[in-house]
């Protein structure tokens, strides 16, 4: 997909974020274009997750502006972000452990449910027909992510790789315009990583979802992403295609080179 000329779905301008005296982000600017897979990389403590939390509305930056789908905003809460079409997964899986995979993903549909509380309580009338419609969408996601065999298994009993997949399913259930993935491959073995990579690509390809992902595995990042932004100590040190970033001296110094 040609995203080079695409319009920005999200732009971050001169964002700074500090916790007390610790500067998590300083003066970071970049944009995410519609339909692309955008990676945010950097060494530990570079501010990647903080960046995601800012986009998500979980943190409020002290300085700078963020525009999502052309709308400027300074203050936003996570549920507003969710309603606006931003979904995310977490570095350490955040699912309802006692609920089944199916129910977890169905929970991702809750924003789209409109039947009033009374009908939902009775599970009758509009609430029932609504649930059937949502269930259909959820089943499509289950089929897509190939997790039919764990549909009715409690999430807490699943291996880590599958929990990650269920979490991705829940995010997809929101039918987001922008999907934020915080280390989707962390702690996975090679096979699980390959599966997850394929799902990420398929989501992007099939649903046209814009994806921003944080990832440590350089192989994954270079293979998956259209463009990469590199953070180090809260500052943006590079931004470009994987090839450009790979050759960037600042990146090599800060990150790739010193690793060995």
């Amino acid at each position: 997909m040609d995203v080079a000329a695409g319009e920005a779905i999200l732009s971050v301008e001169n964002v700074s974020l500090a916790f007390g005296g610790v500067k998590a982000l300083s003066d970071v600017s970049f944009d995410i274009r519609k339909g692309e897979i955008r990676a945010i990389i950097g060494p530990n403590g570079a501010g990647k997750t903080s960046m995601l939390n800012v986009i998500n509305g979980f943190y409020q930056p002290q300085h700078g502006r963020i525009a999502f789908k052309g709308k400027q905003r300074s203050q936003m809460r996570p549920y507003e972000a969710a309603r606006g079409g931003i979904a995310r997964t977490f570095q350490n899986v955040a699912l309802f452990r006692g609920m089944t995979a199916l129910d977890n993903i169905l929970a991702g549909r809750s924003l789209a449910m409109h039947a009033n509380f009374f009908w939902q309580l009775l599970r009758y009338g509009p609430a029932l027909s609504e649930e059937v419609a949502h269930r259909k969408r959820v089943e499509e996601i289950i089929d897509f992510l190939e997790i039919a065999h764990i549909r009715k298994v409690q999430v807490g009993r699943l291996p880590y790789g599958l929990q990650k997949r269920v979490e991705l399913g829940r995010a997809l259930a929101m039918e987001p315009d922008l999907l934020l993935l915080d280390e989707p491959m962390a702690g996975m073995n090679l096979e699980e990583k390959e599966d997850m990579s394929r799902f990420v690509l398929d989501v992007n390809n099939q649903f046209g979802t814009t994806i921003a992902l944080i990832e440590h595995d350089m192989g994954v990042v270079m293979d998956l992403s259209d463009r990469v932004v590199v953070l180090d100590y809260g500052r943006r040190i590079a931004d470009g295609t994987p090839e450009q970033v790979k050759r960037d001296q600042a990146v090599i110094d800060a990150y790739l080179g010193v690793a060995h």
Partner: protein
Amino acid sequence: MQFAARADTSAELADTFPKLLIQNAEILRGRPAMRHKDLGIWQTWTWDAVFEEVRALSVGIAELGLARGDKVAIVGTNRPRLYWAMCAVQALGAVPVPIYADSVADEMAYVLDHAEVTIAVAEDQEQVDKITSISDRLTRLTHILYDEPRGLRDYDHGRLQWITDVQARGRAKLAAGGAAAVWLASVERGKGSDLAVILYTSGTTGRPKGVMLTFDNLIVSARNGNLFDDLGRDEEIIAYLPLAWIGDHVFSYAQSYTAGFCVNCPETPETVVEDRREIGTTYAFAPPRIYENLLTLTMVRMADAGALKRRMFDYFIGVARQWGEKILDRERVPLFARVLYGLGELLVYGPLKNRYGLGRIRVAYTAGEAIGPEIFRFYRALGINLKQLYGQTEASVYITAQPDGEIYADTVGTPNIGVEVRIADSGEVQFRSPGVFIGYFKDPERTSETKTDDGWVRTGDAGLLDERTGHLRIIDRAKDVGRLDDGTLFAPKYIENKLKFYPNIKEAVAFGDKRDFVTVMLNIDLVAVGSWAERNNVVYGNYQELACHPLVYDMVEAHVREVNQSLAGDRALVGAQIRRFLILPKELDADDGELTRTMKVRRGLIGERYAPFVRALYDGATQATIATEVTFEDGRKGVINARVAIRDIGPPAAMEKAA
């Protein structure tokens, strides 16, 4: 006769699958022919609906250009459209060639090339990618059809087509008129003696062989099988075994078309147990491995259950072991035992069978390998009519099977209807039947090695007919039976199977031909031993670490000693007891060529690959190191370095006594 009374209502005249389908669409109109679970809901196609689907697909495929006698590869798991594609192709006089879905690209390239395939029907992106990656070696291939469109949207659709689009074109052509008559004429041209299918057998040695079977082979064998087990249109089966395997081809295709029963395709390969439970199959077929896994899983779960449940389970399983088989075989059983068994059925067996999806089962077969007598009896004790069957691709499955009520754990039953069995002077089992294959595709040499001039087929298995019961007993592959240096009979598979009957042991490879004594290399079962490790606070990171653990060695040594004890009880095999063993640091894998696709060990190849181990087993060393190559799922290769301990069992006392 029973046959006349029950026989497939379908006229005896239909001698090809497309003709059978046309009949079934008439006679069984409105009855379910196929189901597939999709998006969590079972979708059903009646016989008349299947007929419409197949005809549309067939006409669509004809548009692509397919001549009579052309070969069409079918690559994927059990999905309705892949089964329909077989019939659609046969209707055009072409020949389907089902291929193991988990073959790596190289294996697939050999078969596709050897079979001269012109069109490939693939399940999904994975299979399409595989075929595309080898397409430069497949000069004849003109089209690839696929069933599951996901991920394929952006592919070049020059010669790639979605099955649904092909069907749509077929429907359009049928609607335009004329095409239906042309199609029917094409079906009418087919006869029973035509080549129906080529099934490649994975084979324990050498390149796969393409077994050519006619419609007569398959249809007569299927009808005889239906008659043997009284199968009718009300059966429900689940199709989950490889399409390329003769078992699935006969059970899910030939028998379904002849008996008119419904074939259920699972949602995914991983959901089979759950799906089977929802359907409640009445007729089932599985290699012993499946039954072993189910039992292992049950035992592991029970070990984790509460004390009360465990005691209840143990007690009633005891009752079942004592009375269950007798009740199943309709023998005379005291009233109290019946009552107790009834209570067990309510509390334990019923729920357990329901878990397995075997609650409604009438006939269940195990075949392909020997099944452990303990495992076999366990299922029978629960009231499941599990029987053994001995078959081959070359026989269209059926050679022998156990008739109801005549079950002996160590035999594979009596010859099936229409089958003659004889034991050659060499001890090899040979048979003659209507199901005997035409030959191996493009391989007259191996065909004449296998078929005798008078129409008998050499099975390559050593066996004997039990004098008392007339049942056949299989000992080992004829060519694998060897001798120790002192002349003792060495039947490796016999020893391996005895070991594999322990849930902790997944695979065993025995050595001993032309050697002083017998040694074995083992694979532990990660589920069973892993669960044991958890309960005993044994810490391990991966298979290799667990396999090397001294406590695991102790446990396995106890199993080996028990096997030796049972060998000591057999006059011919007393000298073939196991002296030394080791546990392999890696699981044997079909991707590394160590197992066949049907999960049989390739002894020769393993002996070569692990040559340092074999040497160490015989030179008295206490440990051995090796660097062995492994193939990852994506086809990349890596190397595992490992050092393993070797356990010496020593010459057992029983042997000296016998000597």
